[in-house]
């Protein structure tokens, strides 16, 4: 906490804060909890649409998907904890995001995990990659929420600071929607779930709001261990509570623990809240109120219940074998007060309870003076910063480079690019990710019509007549480094394009904004640009932003990561009668490319593999994108194609190769020279079209004003582009499939 912030606290209280008050303000006013550097920018994002039931600012965004059903969605980062302890960091990230979803009354049905690491040739990176994936697998599978898709990117800028983002989606009958609200003086706050330990104390502020120094011992005590079994029971108990109408609201305990959860629920209604630290079940004896109120122990929820319902609530919790105790009471004081020994076990204030077994009697129990007493809104009303913005000094120089020109000199027309293609397919960024997602239960609930491995994941909604959701997560850090505004737009375009490929129309977007140190004006400039770019793209496509998360201080040794806005787009398919076409090429089909190809190699995978990180990112033509998405969604819905695939990393050559591998069939096409083979021009989709449907497809494209070109035909056992490359499907598949497993097994030198 800065001196100015401390002065603001003294102003607010008109006295010096107590130790507990100071601790609460310092976690609640941390960057992580208060968004003090980002709030002034986030207002520029569009958030409204008729189907948005709950926008940003609550536990999760909620949208109406029809048939009486709503969907809750949210994304969060757990970058810093995962850098300290990858398994538990990732595991508790999954646990946290799932709690956000069921606290809204939604049953969590899917997780997605956009991940970023340094290059895999570094042993520490392999250790982090292995640990993070096992953590997501270990927690997600056991808690019973399938991980249906995600993203893995390897780039040197993440070596010291990996990114672990997790998205969760839940469904709920519209009438079960609850907002975490504490209303009605005399109502009780019941703490459910795990006991409160010293783990994670100061976690939010310490880990997420300061630069991460590798191997820093001091951060270790705050490592939290996830308990997916406890969380599974909490999901069932909380949903049953809400179904039975036994709770007015439930709130998860996340960053800043009980101080945040208890004060926030009451602040939203203008009520007050008294909390008794002595009533909180503690894991270790001798914990003081500061530790109790700021602990970030996992798997805890706070339910607001009426005194009449208390017994039934306790019985229900007992049936699910979870601990539950009254720890607070709603008041109309407008204050957040913490006592240490004030309630009896049913929440009657003024009693002098026995301390929990093993604890010494609280020293201040008898005088019943609060150990903290603050205006309830003030904790959540942190400072607001307008930090200085400035583009990086080297931006002009970086943008002036043109890798296309240089690569064209090195690989003039006529060069055999077969080796280049195989090398790209074996790049961990492009290679098969099934080593990752095979470790995730991606099928639970029998909804997964299209799981990981294609463009968007498609989940049917069994509760409806044929509705389905399509989901995709994407981030384009390298493009954003070259132009954060365009990079953010390209991320939105790619996610929306993936969703369109399954025949869905986009409904909403959530974002996770991973940036460096906000005290660097370059980082704040990148942030501001990215917010504007994202806003523009969302407006152009008509997609409201229903939630987000900001993660700053992603840096190591003073070097910031590339700005990495990650987005998740959710789309709706109205009537899913059969699985969407998928990405496989079909023998005998014609191959059609939609969208315009330009020699755009700045920030591309191919250029990066040749050591060129500079240039300009591809153009993000928002209007053209919208036309393409509408056309593609229609073609997919009407089953006009046998297969279709979004064209992104590695360009059209890689997209075609992936389609060939999926279909087990080769192709013969003409895609031009190196610049067009591997260009990453945005807003392109490759189609596999039955010969009898080609004319209609081309006709539809032309009336939609989308450029379309027949590239060639599917068939045979070779991938061939005249004058460019020729490799067997088998060789391509081997390069693509073996890359990650062979790195991960040949070098099982992982250690702590």
């Amino acid at each position, binding site marked *: 906490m800065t001196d100015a912030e401390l002065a603001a606290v003294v102003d607010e209280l008109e006295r010096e804060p107590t130790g507990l008050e100071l601790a609460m303000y310092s976690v609640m006013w941390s960057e992580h909890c208060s968004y003090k550097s980002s709030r002034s920018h986030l207002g520029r994002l569009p958030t409204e649409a008729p189907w948005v039931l709950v926008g940003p600012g609550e536990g999760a965004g909620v949208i109406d998907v029809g048939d009486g059903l709503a969907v809750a969605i949210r994304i969060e980062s757990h970058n810093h904890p995962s850098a300290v302890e990858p398994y538990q960091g990732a595991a508790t990230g999954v646990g946290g995001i799932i709690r956000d979803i069921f606290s809204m009354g939604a049953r969590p049905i899917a997780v997605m995990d956009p991940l970023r690491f340094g290059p895999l040739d570094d042993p520490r990176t392999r250790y982090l990659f292995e640990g993070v994936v096992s953590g997501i697998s270990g927690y997600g599978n056991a808690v019973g929420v399938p991980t249906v898709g995600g993203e893995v990117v390897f780039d040197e800028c993440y070596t010291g600071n990996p990114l672990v983002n997790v998205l969760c989606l839940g469904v709920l009958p519209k009438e079960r929607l609850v907002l975490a609200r504490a209303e009605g003086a005399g109502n009780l706050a019941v703490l459910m779930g795990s006991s409160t330990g010293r783990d994670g104390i100061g976690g939010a502020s310490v880990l997420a709001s300061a630069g991460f120094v590798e191997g820093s011992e001091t951060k270790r005590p705050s490592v939290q261990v996830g308990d997916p079994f406890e969380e599974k029971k909490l999901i069932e108990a909380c949903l049953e509570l809400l179904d039975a109408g036994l709770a007015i609201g439930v709130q998860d305990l996340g960053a800043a623990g009980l101080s945040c959860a208890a004060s926030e629920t009451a602040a939203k209604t203008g009520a007050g809240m008294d909390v008794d630290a002595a009533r909180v079940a503690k894991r270790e004896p001798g914990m003081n109120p500061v530790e109790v109120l700021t602990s970030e122990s996992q798997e805890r929820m706070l339910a607001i219940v009426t005194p009449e319902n208390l017994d039934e609530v306790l019985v229900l919790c007992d049936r699910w074998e979870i601990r539950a105790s009254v720890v607070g009471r709603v008041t109309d004081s407008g204050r957040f007060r913490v006592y240490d020994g004030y309630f009896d076990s049913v929440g009657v204030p003024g009693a002098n309870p026995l301390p929990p077994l093993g604890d010494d009697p609280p020293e201040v129990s008898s005088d019943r003076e609060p150990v903290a007493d603050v205006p309830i809104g003030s904790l959540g009303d942190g400072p607001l910063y307008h930090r200085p913005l400035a583009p990086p000094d080297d931006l002009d120089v970086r943008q002036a480079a043109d890798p296309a020109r240089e690569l064209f000199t090195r690989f003039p027309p006529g060069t055999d690019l077969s080796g280049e293609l195989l090398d790209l397919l074996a790049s961990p960024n492009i290679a098969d990710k099934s080593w990752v997602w095979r470790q995730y239960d*991606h*099928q639970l609930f029998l909804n997964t019509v299209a799981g990981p491995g294609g463009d968007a994941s498609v989940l049917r909604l069994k509760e409806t007549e044929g509705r389905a959701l399509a989901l995709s997560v994407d981030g384009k850090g390298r493009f954003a480094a070259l132009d954060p505004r365009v990079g953010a737009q390209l991320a939105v375009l790619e996610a929306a394009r993936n969703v369109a490929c399954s025949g869905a129309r986009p409904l909403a977007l959530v974002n996770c904004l991973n940036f460096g140190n906000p005290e660097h004006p370059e980082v704040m400039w990148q942030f501001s640009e990215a917010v504007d770019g994202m806003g523009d793209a969302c407006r152009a496509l008509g997609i409201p932003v229903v939630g987000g998360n900001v993660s700053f201080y992603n840096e190591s040794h003073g070097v910031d990561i590339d700005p990495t806005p990650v987005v998740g787009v959710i789309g709706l398919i109205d009537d899913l009668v059969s699985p969407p076409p998928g990405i496989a090429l079909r023998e005998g089909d014609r191959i059609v490319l939609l969208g315009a190809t330009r020699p755009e190699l700045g920030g591309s995978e191919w250029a990066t593999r040749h050591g060129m990180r500079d240039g300009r990112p591809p153009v993000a033509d928002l209007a053209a994108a919208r036309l393409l998405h509408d056309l593609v969604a229609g073609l997919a819905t009407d089953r006009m194609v046998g297969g279709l695939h979004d064209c992104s990393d590695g360009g059209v050559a890689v997209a075609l190769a992936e389609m060939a591998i999926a279909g087990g069939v080769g192709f013969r096409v003409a895609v031009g020279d190196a610049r067009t083979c591997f260009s990453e021009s945005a807003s392109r989709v490759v189609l596999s079209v039955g010969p009898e449907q080609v004319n209609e497809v081309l006709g539809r494209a032309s009336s939609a004003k989308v450029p379309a070109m027949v590239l060639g035909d599917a068939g045979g056992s070779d991938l061939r582009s005249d004058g460019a490359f020729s490799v067997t499907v088998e060789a391509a598949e081997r390069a693509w499939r073996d890359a990650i497993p062979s790195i991960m097994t040949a070098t099982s030198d992982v250690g702590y």
Partner: protein
Amino acid sequence: MSAMVGIVQFPGTNCELDVQHAVEQLGGSAKILFHTEHDLAGVDAVVVPGGFAHGDYLRTGAIARFSPVMESVAQLAAAGGPVVGICNGFQVLCEAGLLPGALQKNAGLKFLCESVDLRVESTASVLTSQARSGDVLRIPINHFEGNYVCSPETLAELRGEDRVVMRYVDNPNGSLDDIAGIRNAAGNVVGLMPHPERASDAMLGSDDGVVLLRSLLAAATKRSALLAS
């Protein structure tokens, strides 16, 4: 009245509603049996479904097998009633001693969620009566502990008595003798690691599991008729 399949739910179980959905899609009836229940009233067959009963802590199935409901399941099994354990349910049945052997961590020490090919080896079980021996079914697995082990004597017995119900065509987890599922001597108790309910709808990629679920429904119906007469 159609036969009723009871599906056991321990804390941590997560496939109970999936099994119920698949059974109901096939026209069967199913209800959830909470682990604290002693009484299987009205149930003609029991499925112990997949998931992570009690978090899989200590050992998979170790704590679950002491649940009150398991006593009744053992009685049903002893009386010849159909009892099928899928994945975590298989692990629970082994711990409970209703099936021999145990399931250890996969040889690769990784959780595996993928479709595998299974060869039907024995049709003398409530789960495979409608399949043909030698049929190859494509059904997803979803486990960390699917690596079947038992003593050499037990293995000899399983082989000698045609009690290996299904084998992996391409062993994914190091399982002894490629075992994916086994049965008791009478054939009314079966455990298997793969999830037939996940292969019960072409929309999800495969309906090869339907023949197994139909076999189970047929066994339940037979038992219900037997009890009625």
